[in-house]
């Protein structure tokens, strides 16, 4: 699997660390309540199809990326810098 890092270009999957769903971008407020935090930490749409998740170019440039890809075909559509993502 290869991901095109916005800094480094196409790179092998082995350079990246996978974190999980990109919903992590939308961190609830401290007092959002158990349900909101449960959803944030645990519950997942877990789509069989297009998804967006967070990867860290750990053995590369050190950028956190939002990767849009497909969980069924493993097609990778797009990778963008997480720090520029809309929240």
């Amino acid at each position, binding site marked *: 699997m290869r991901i095109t890092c916005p*800094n*480094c*270009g196409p*790179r*092998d999957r*082995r*350079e990246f660390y996978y974190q999980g769903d990109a919903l992590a971008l939308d961190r609830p407020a401290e007092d959002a309540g158990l349900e909101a935090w449960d959803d944030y930490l645990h519950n997942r749409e877990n789509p069989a199809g297009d998804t967006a998740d967070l990867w860290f*170019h*750990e*053995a*590369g*440039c*050190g*950028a956190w990326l939002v990767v849009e890809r497909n969980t069924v075909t493993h097609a990778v559509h797009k990778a963008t*810098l997480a720090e520029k993502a809309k929240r």
Partner: protein
Amino acid sequence: MVKLIALTPCAGLLPITHGGVEVTEVRPERLMSVAPYAGQSKATSAKLKEQIGEGLSAVMCRAGAVTWFGHGTWLVAGEVALDGVAAVTDQSDAWAVVAISGAGAEDVLARLVPVDLRAGVFKKNHVAKTMLGHMAVTITRTDTATFEIMVMRAMARTLVHDLDIAMRGVAAR
């Protein structure tokens, strides 16, 4: 008066040569990481140009003493003062730096590095933040058949070991 003795990261390990490929240690005197603060890239670049004659290099590139060093970070070979515009951290002792050269250097690195480093693609002064074996490295093509490789200082021995094995394998072909 007591005096501390300095040792280089690859002391006692280099140089090595196999089949026309040679690895030698590079000993930069000063290495400073430079990470411009929010909105300060231009200011940082300007100050750098003033101080060492070269601004921030392009992503994945080296320009003079300035090497792109990852997301939002550069490594400058030399002393700089960038108060207020960038975080500057002394990295002079943090890296083992070696040069690998010779006609087979590309083949040796192809055994270890998951990035296309062939001359047609990875040109002089191109920089790759990538892996060598299981280690994170920074690779710069410094000449037609020469690459500079930086790895965490404590991994110098593994770097030399991995290069040695790959060089022997290439030479044996």
